[in-house]
């Protein structure tokens, strides 16, 4: 049984305008002077409540910076919510930043192993799949050379082949439908469809609203970190499209950034976070 339950979840990042904290900054803080490089709060998610169970195919649409990818990462357990509770039941497979996290000195075969073990495979289960992964990537002899010699397209091919070789219960996808060259894209699309058919619960983030209507049976429209609409894909997509013709409201990029200083203690994650993976 796969299940996602988010109850009034908020996620606030405290970010400094300059990455570096200088010695001067430390000293002025000691002297209780106002910081010149204060932390600003970025409200990536604001009060998101979501409940999904077996059979749901959810598509999330929205502008850049609306909080779509952050929501996925929070569902995957990468970011803990700063407020509210998150409960995800079922084996989660997340397809985002898929070309990140390769060990560049290791060859293709080794990277298949690392990535597969990261997703919870064991040498025994991987043994049965590794040839299939290699064939799907079509990288042939390139698998024997270190991945630092790969082109970015080859990396995506490899990443996609590994990531989609598992049978997840909860599938989280962020914009990976456009992987590789044309021929590979067609293959990738078919593989995705197979996966979506076998996964019990799927959440897809994409800018291709047509695929939301095509694949999903439920859609969320996010804006400034909040869910503004949740319903059947055709209605949500229509509303989203309509908003684009009213640029004044829609063109605003980003979740809520407020310039107010943040005290560290405001950012403690909810202790109730429970992930049953």
């Amino acid at each position, binding site marked *: 049984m796969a299940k996602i339950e988010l109850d009034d979840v908020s996620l606030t990042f405290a970010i400094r305008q300059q990455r570096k904290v200088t010695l001067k900054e430390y000293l002025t803080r000691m002297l209780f002077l106002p910081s010149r490089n204060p932390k600003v709060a970025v409200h990536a998610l604001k009060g998101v409540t979501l409940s999904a169970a077996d059979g749901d195919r959810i598509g999330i649409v929205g502008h850049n910076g609306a909080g779509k990818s952050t929501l996925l990462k929070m569902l995957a357990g*990468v970011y*803990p919510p700063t407020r509210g509770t998150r409960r995800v039941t079922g084996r989660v497979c997340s397809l985002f930043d898929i070309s990140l*996290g390769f060990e560049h000195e290791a060859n293709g075969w080794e990277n298949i192993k*690392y990535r597969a073990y990261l997703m919870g495979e064991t040498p025994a289960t991987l043994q049965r799949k590794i040839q299939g992964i290699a064939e799907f990537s079509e990288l042939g002899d390139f698998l024997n050379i270190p991945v630092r010699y790969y082109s970015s397209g080859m990396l995506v091919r490899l990443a996609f082949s590994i990531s989609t070789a598992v049978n997840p219960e909860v599938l989280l996808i962020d914009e990976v439908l456009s992987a590789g060259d044309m021929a590979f894209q067609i293959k990738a699309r078919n593989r995705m469809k197979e996966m979506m058919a076998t996964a019990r619960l799927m959440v897809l983030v994409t800018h291709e609203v047509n695929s939301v209507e095509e694949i999903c049976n439920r859609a969320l429209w996010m804006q400034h970190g909040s869910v503004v609409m949740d319903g059947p894909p055709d209605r949500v997509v229509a509303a989203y499209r309509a908003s684009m013709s009213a640029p004044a409201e829609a063109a605003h990029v980003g979740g809520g950034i407020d310039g107010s200083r943040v005290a560290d203690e405001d950012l403690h994650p909810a202790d109730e976070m429970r992930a049953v993976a």
Partner: protein
Amino acid sequence: MLSHIQSIWTFRHFWMALVKMDLRTKYRRSVLGVGWSVLNPILMSAVLMLGFGRVLGGGDTIREYGAFLLSGLCVWEFMRNSMSIGCNALTQNEAYIRQSPLPYGIYPLRTVAGTGIHFLISLTVTVVIVCVLKDSASPLLHAWVVLPTVALLFVFCWSLAAIFAFANAYFHDTQHLTDVVMSLLFFLTPVMIKPENQPEAIRAANAYNPFNVFMQLVRQPLISADDPFPSGELWVQAAGLTAILFALACSTVGALQKKVIFQL
């Protein structure tokens, strides 16, 4: 914490594969390869012996001082490297942290498993060379006395690496400060200066130096043929230190694992 340890075990194939890769890449394109792990303690000792042997060896023969130096250096290097490399355990694995909610204990474990394997190689080399230098089989016969220390040291070093990895994520200057402090401690801890040649104040302070406790536990069975068994007090000290540090590391991981991603 138990579920954390269980989860580290579940993902053992992942971190073990990375440890193997780290060992391979460390000596990538090197002609001697892992031979450097064998040679390193020998060459380091030879250099220190040539430089300081006369001055610091006191009345010892070159052979005796060499045995003292080797047996100290291998432990010291393990502890220092675990801390120094451990500082980067989280930042180095950021790509994995941002992808998958793995238990955070895995990342310092990757570091310490790597440094630990090098330590085991150096320790083996040390035992053999000390046998040759002392012209006696005593170090080899008493090597088993070191085994419980090795287990304790491993937990001790993991705890150090975990604490420093989190500290470095919050305060990026930690690593530089650690390197400086460890350079100072190198001279205070009896790694190359024999305790009897140290000033009284430093000798007294070393009774509370955790690095010294472990160093004595490894050194005594290897170089003191007359009295190869460390005192019970020393064992209790080492076990106590390890337990305290392990508890501290576990609470650090437990308290910060849901927050540290915002610092990376």
